[in-house]
């Protein structure tokens, strides 16, 4: 849907102001309740027993001793979670991930669970469960998993559209592009081809998964849970457990970070099943170790990139082959990598081929612009190499090839108005570009793209008799969206921000809302609120017309009040929203507005980043000195939280680029499931992160909003790689660019240079 440009370009009164967030006081006083902060009378403590093996047959499980332990109220295994979905593979995969069904598929895979009167008893009970495992060969590396003879992770998996008789770890092969890429390379003056690897990273939200589940023998249940999508959780849990959707009420707690990791269920069906069996509420909270081992990190990858270019800088051909591991269950992550890989550029001949590959690692979940950062690392690193090869400035090279309105994207659609060129122009003019660098310091830049999503959305606007406004939405507030959504309602109704109270409704109070993912929270709920407000305004006009006893078409809504139009009504004083609301009990009852919508029209988003680093050539340690994010927000509803999204995404990208990685041992077990050795950036690791918000309105939204949450995690890997290359003259092709990898590359380069000197001499 396209919206009136005069609306998207209009001057806003409250949108764009930096108001205090409505949940601020609760969150600074410790009053806000997160997943683990709820209690219920008679609640039990749930705990999960997990596989210590990367891949093993479960020959038998003996729970009798655990069941006999005083204080244990329920013990469950996959036998208590029968197939209620008629073999629907996508749902069965989720269920099997929640509890192994005959085979443990990765280190940390749940195999049994208990509910007991306290944590101590639950812990003892787990120890009493005896499992007879037969350890099977495993594979954790994506390239190894694709080789002939590799251990097969899921015997039922076949490559989609491939040989129906051949067991494989490749679940699908996806291809995107247009033109003739081979002809493009033939036409090129310079062709550069490089291979890259990126290690697996985790979203690293500070709040572990936690829920409080209660199911009675009447088949009714409640779930309090930290989630990005309580409607999705409700639907999945109900389907997996054979419950009726309307009879499971899910309330989303305050969420302590998600970044994609809390978009689908991990242990919530287990908590519900325990509660059903024990007939008591069960609280289940993951430890940090469980979060790392048994929730959904993002993929590790192996990517080849080839770019052909004319001496004048025009790219004639671009190709990427991407191999993404999805963990132990089929996913679409490689496909997304292929779709995003070339999205920044206007290319005549382009091709991306992606392999989605199974390995014995946890099921991969979304992580902020999922799959795009790795592809961008490969593409944007190669872009710098190509620019260097033809002696062109890397920003100019990108500008020359950047996509624009009307460009056919490599993944299919034709772009509307987009911001990639604007972000690149802003890079050229950014003051950081003029800061002089010292020895061992380097500057790099890179671009990033993300689609953004819309999806199913509902909103209700209720006007109180005192003229204050309740806004109910169903998209979970992951980072301040209640403030933004309140601003939108205030703008649309013409009332002060302070009079609006925005609440995240439980699943019984609103229709279905898709999960807060794909940067859709403010985009889609903002859209539904605007329509719901317009709905309410119509009713407000009706009531004013009724009060004045004039035709409703003569009543206009302006600056939060009803105005009677026309000279014949000039004696009528405008009625404010509060005045109309006060009369509402006598003019027809409560005034409300509703909207249910599929929020189409999400606008793609682009970002360009600049990064200055200093590398210690004797240790390989890299310090980020300066960092700047430039991103198109469409329209920044609450600039503070837009900047916050940019900064947080960049920080996650910086951590990914430098130090974060899943380290598996030869035994296929995760070696670093904790915040000590999974090294997310600490406060002293980072500089202030400069931000520039560009506003190129999205014609697909009444206020011009684009999603802002994800795109800025995409450029940092390559921006840092390019900066490191410019600092110490070595090209890192393996992320994270940890000190040992950088030092090794520097030493290799030194000995190469030595060889060159020797041969030259």
């Amino acid at each position, binding site marked *: 849907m396209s919206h009136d440009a005069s609306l998207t370009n209009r001057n806003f009164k409250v949108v764009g102001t930096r108001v205090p967030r409505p949940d601020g006081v609760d969150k600074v006083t410790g009053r806000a309740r997160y997943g683990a902060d709820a209690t219920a009378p008679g609640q039990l403590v749930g705990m999960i027993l997990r596989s210590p093996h990367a891949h093993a047959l479960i020959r038998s499980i003996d729970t009798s001793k655990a069941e006999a332990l005083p204080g244990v109220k329920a013990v469950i295994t996959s036998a208590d979670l029968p197939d209620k979905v008629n073999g629907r593979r996508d749902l069965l995969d989720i269920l099997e991930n929640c509890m192994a069904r005959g085979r443990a598929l990765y280190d940390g895979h749940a195999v049994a669970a208990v509910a007991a009167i306290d944590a101590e008893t639950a812990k003892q009970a787990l120890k009493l469960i005896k499992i007879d495992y037969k350890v099977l060969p495993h594979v954790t590396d994506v390239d190894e998993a694709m080789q002939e003879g590799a251990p097969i992770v899921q015997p039922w998996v076949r490559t989609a559209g491939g040989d129906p008789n051949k067991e494989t770890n490749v679940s699908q092969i996806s291809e995107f592009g247009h033109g003739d890429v081979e002809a493009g390379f033939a036409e090129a003056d310079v062709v550069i081809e490089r291979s890259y690897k990126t290690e697996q990273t985790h979203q690293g939200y500070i709040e572990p998964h936690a829920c409080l589940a209660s199911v009675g023998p009447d088949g009714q249940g409640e779930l309090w849970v930290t989630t990005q999508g309580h409607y999705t959780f409700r639907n999945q849990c109900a389907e997996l457990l054979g419950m009726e959707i309307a009879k499971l009420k899910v309330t989303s707690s305050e969420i302590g970070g998600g970044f994609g990791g809390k978009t689908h269920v991990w242990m919530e069906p287990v908590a519900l099943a325990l509660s059903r069996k024990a007939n008591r509420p069960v609280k289940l909270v993951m430890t940090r*170790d469980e979060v790392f081992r048994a929730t959904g990190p993002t993929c590790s990858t192996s990517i080849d990139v080839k770019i052909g270019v004319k001496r004048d800088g025009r790219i004639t051909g671009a190709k990427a082959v991407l191999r993404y591991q999805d963990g132990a269950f089929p996913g679409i992550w490689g496909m997304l990598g292929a779709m995003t890989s070339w999205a920044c550029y206007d290319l005549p001949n382009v091709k991306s081929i992606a392999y989605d590959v199974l390995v014995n690692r946890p099921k991969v979940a979304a992580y902020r612009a999922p799959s795009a950062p790795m592809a961008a690392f490969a593409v944007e690193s190669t872009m710098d190499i190509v620019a260097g090869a033809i002696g062109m400035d890397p920003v100019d090279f990108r500008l020359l090839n950047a996509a624009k309105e009307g460009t056919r994207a490599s993944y299919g659609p034709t772009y509307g108005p987009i911001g990639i060129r604007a972000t690149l122009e802003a890079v050229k003019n950014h003051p950081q570009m003029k800061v002089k660098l010292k020895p061992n310091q380097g500057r790099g830049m890179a671009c990033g793209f993300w689609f953004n999503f819309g999806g199913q959305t509902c909103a209700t606007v209720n006007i109180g008799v005192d003229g204050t406004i309740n806004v109910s939405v169903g998209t979970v507030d992951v980072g301040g969206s209640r403030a933004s959504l309140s601003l939108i309602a205030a703008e649309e109704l013409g009332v002060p921000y302070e009079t609006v109270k925005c609440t995240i409704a439980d699943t019984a109070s609103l229709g279905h809302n898709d999960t807060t993912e794909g940067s859709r929270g403010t985009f889609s709920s903002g859209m539904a609120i605007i329509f719901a407000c317009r709905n309410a305004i119509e009713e407000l006009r009706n009531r004013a017309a009724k009060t004045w006893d004039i035709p409703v078409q003569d009543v206009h809504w302006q600056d939060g009040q009803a105005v009677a139009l026309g000279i014949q009504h000039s004696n009528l004083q405008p009625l404010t929203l509060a005045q109309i609301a006060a009369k509402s009990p006598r003019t027809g009852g409560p005034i409300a507005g509703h909207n249910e919508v599929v929020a189409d029209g999400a606008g793609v988003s682009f970002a360009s980043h600049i990064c200055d680093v200093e590398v210690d050539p*004797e*240790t390989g340690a890299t310090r980020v000195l300066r960092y700047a994010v430039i991103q198109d927000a469409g329209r920044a509803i609450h600039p503070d939280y837009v900047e916050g999204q940019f900064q947080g995404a960049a920080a996650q990208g910086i951590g990914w680029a*430098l130090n974060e990685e899943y380290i598996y041992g030869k035994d296929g077990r995760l070696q670093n499931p904790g915040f*000590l050795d999974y*090294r997310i950036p*600490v*406060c*002293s690791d980072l500089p202030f992160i400069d931000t520039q918000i560009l506003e190129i309105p999205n014609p697909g939204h009444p206020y011009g909003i684009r999603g802002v949450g994800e795109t800025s995690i995409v450029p940092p890997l390559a921006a840092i790689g390019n900066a490191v290359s410019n600092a110490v003259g070595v090209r890192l092709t393996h992320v994270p660019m940890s000190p*040992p990898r950088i030092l090794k590359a520097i030493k290799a380069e030194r000995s190469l240079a030595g060889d060159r000197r020797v041969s030259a001499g």
Partner: protein
Amino acid sequence: MRYEAPTSTKDAVTLLSRAKGSAFVLAGGSDLLVRMKGGFIEPDLVVDIKRIPALQEIRKTSTGFRIGAAVPCAAMGEHAGLRKAWPGVVEAANLIGSDQIQSRCTVAGNLCNASPAADSVPALVAAKAKAVIAGPKGRRTVPVEKVPAGPGRTTLGKGEFVEAILLPLPKGKTGDAYLRFTPRTEMDIAVCSAGVCLKLGRGGVIEEARVALGAVAPTVVLVPAAAKAIVGTKLDEAALAALTAACEAACAPIDDKRGTVEFRTEVAGVLARRAAKIAYQRAGG
């Protein structure tokens, strides 16, 4: 598990020596509680030594400093006299963990946890620190490097615990320094580390030296060859190169999630060189 908080060393020793099953001393708890939480140990008895008054203070004596086993590392940083005398030791102690950990962790605990990567230990070894061990047979004093026996193992007998760490008074123109390598600026375990203590003689010539390396062997290692490489020099480039080579030669690390053999060996040499320069400067060279 039983929790006891005795108020005298004697009572603590009695509790520890009479304990049936596994008994652990709780000082700061920043290692012990993590091991308990992870299920790596299940103590039958935990003896909290923080209620023993003498163990809670840093005392300056005629021969040096006595740091009670319950003194948190933060308090070492707050002690001006200790900071002035042994800046390297204090910096090393203050590098352990965050401010939160600093409020709890102790150098005695750091020593007895017996991790080869313990931050305070190379600096203590370089400074010739001693450990006062209380036990059923009374007290004994040993050089700190004699306490760890291997990763997670100590030479302490049943009923024994470290009551205090002794540091001598620095003699003449003495300077010490400690450096570690971590991928992050904070909140990391040393991938490798180096503690250096130097005493200068006339004309800035190094008269005595002690060089200790961390996380490159099963225990912190004192490297006499590295000391020898710089004694008699003014820490010129040749001496530094010899120091680096001696350190690299002394490394026998492992490959693990925190670092590779190659990386640890090379960077240990770099750190020793850099620490030596700082120590030299502090000694007035």
